């Protein structure tokens, strides 16, 4: 028996007719010249013949019918299954869509947060003031506490400067300083002038001279300016005496005084520096408020009457109202003494001056 598997493979291919013509001729030559190979070929052929001689068995007669019955049965059962699969598929797709949408929203949120972090102006949340309407209750507003500073290199307690805020045009923007309503008398003076530059320069200088403001440059704007500060009545009196020199430049002057009741204000039309000085001269919040209300009524009546007789008589009767002795600084030590003067919080007044050009 030939045990060479390569020869066996060739012989099997020879038997099965799977050889090329050249291989076929070669194997034929081998068979002719080698009896062992011829014997091995015979053995393999016998195997093939034996298997090939096995009788073919026919399928059972019922097989075709059984196949058809099975197919029909499955066809009947198929629609509900498909329907169920379709529902499951639809649900799966819906779930995927919802999850995709949620993921997209999440990504967009993160993206928006990142973009905002990059593009948001620096220090946007670090504004020292809450810009808004003064009529809002101040208790709702939080602002930095007024600080004490250095005046012209001299270390001293300085009248607290609440803020300097720039305004544009007639935009009604009012600062609300860290002024507690219970101890500070809050006023807002709105001025309108034709000579904005000159008036603003004068006011800035007056404020600076009185040690109330050391950062004038920040107050300058093309079409307006705003100054806000808290100080003692005495300092305020000096400032008003200075402002009196330029008062005739104001075309309108309105004073708003906070009543402290639900954001209400007393509005005094055509206010004068003398009237303001008269108001703050009074001791106590209530007395000042009474005087402010009186001036509001008087000034309104004055404006309503064509001849302005009442105002004229008031002026003549109270000619001393406008006389505000302006202190004369004879030396630097006096100024230092003044600013070092301990300010009683209950005597503090807060004034915001808004100037707009016409």
């Amino acid at each position: 028996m030939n045990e060479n598997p390569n020869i066996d493979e060739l012989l099997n291919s020879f038997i099965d007719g799977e050889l090329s013509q050249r291989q076929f001729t070669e194997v034929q030559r081998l068979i002719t010249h080698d009896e062992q190979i011829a014997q091995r070929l015979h053995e393999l052929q016998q195997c093939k013949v034996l298997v090939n001689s096995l009788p073919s068995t026919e399928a059972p007669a019922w097989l075709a019918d059984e196949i058809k019955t099975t197919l029909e049965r499955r066809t009947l059962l198929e629609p509900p299954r498909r329907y169920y699969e379709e529902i499951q598929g639809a649900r799966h797709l819906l779930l995927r869509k919802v999850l995709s949408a949620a993921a997209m929203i999440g990504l967009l949120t993160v993206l928006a947060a990142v973009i905002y972090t990059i593009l948001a102006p620096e220090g946007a949340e670090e504004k020292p003031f809450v810009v808004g309407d003064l009529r809002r209750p101040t208790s709702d507003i939080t602002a930095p506490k007024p600080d004490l500073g250095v005046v012209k290199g001299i270390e001293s307690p300085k009248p607290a400067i609440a803020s300097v805020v720039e305004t544009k045009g007639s935009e009604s923007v009012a600062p609300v300083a860290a002024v507690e309503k219970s101890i500070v008398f809050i006023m807002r003076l709105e001025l309108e002038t034709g000579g904005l530059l000159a008036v603003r320069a004068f006011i800035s200088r007056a404020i600076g001279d009185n040690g109330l403001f050391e950062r004038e440059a920040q107050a300058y704007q093309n079409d307006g300016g705003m100054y806000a500060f808290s100080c003692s009545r005495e300092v305020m009196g000096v400032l008003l005496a200075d402002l009196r020199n330029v008062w005739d430049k104001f075309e309108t002057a309105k004073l708003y005084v906070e009543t402290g009741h639900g954001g209400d204000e007393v509005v005094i039309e055509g206010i004068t520096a003398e009237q303001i000085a008269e108001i703050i001269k009074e001791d106590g919040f209530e007395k000042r408020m009474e005087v402010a209300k009186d001036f509001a009524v008087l000034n309104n009546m004055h404006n309503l009457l064509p001849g302005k007789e009442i105002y004229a008589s008031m002026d003549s009767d109270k000619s001393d109202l406008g006389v505000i002795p302006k202190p004369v600084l004879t030396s630097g030590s006096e100024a230092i003494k003044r600013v070092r003067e301990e300010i009683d919080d209950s005597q503090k007044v807060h004034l915001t001056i808004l100037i707009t050009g016409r």
Partner: protein
Amino acid sequence: MTETANINIDDATLVEQCRQGDSEATERLIIKYQNRIYNVILKICVNADDAAELSQETFVKVIENIDKFEGRSSFYTWLFKIAVNLTLSYCKRSAKLGLKSLDSEDDKHGREGRRALKEFLSDDSSSDPAAIASNKELCELIKKALMKLNDNQRAVIVLRDIEGMDYAQIARVLDVELGTVKSRLNRGRSNLREIMEAISQ
């Protein structure tokens, strides 16, 4: 090859009609191949009931998946691929059962069959296949010898010597290389010869 080509053309038409829900075409496909499928399955798994069940499963699977038949191979190859795969899977699961059924019939086909087989193997002249087929005991011994082969070798020999497939078709049906088919056939026939010689003693 000419015959195969004609079968393929007919098959393509039947498959197309079957896809369109033509039950008559489906029936014709089943009738056309049921005996050949059953015969091949039976020669691989031996048990008639199992062969019938596997044949039924094969056709049901083929008809249900006829839309997935892409035509890259012939329908004939695809059909036999499914049949042989199902059968080999079945054989792996119940190989022991198949051998037991033969062992129990060992004595029944003993003496007469062994004598006939011995004569056949020792005879140098070529025997008449019809004479072999008529000898039931000899046929049972041959089946027994086939069952002694491993599943892969038996499948190749059945597809080649019973179904008459060429090597390339066998490779496609079993999804193996052509060289694998040759080596399996070579080892299968060698083993079969040895088994039959052992049985005939």
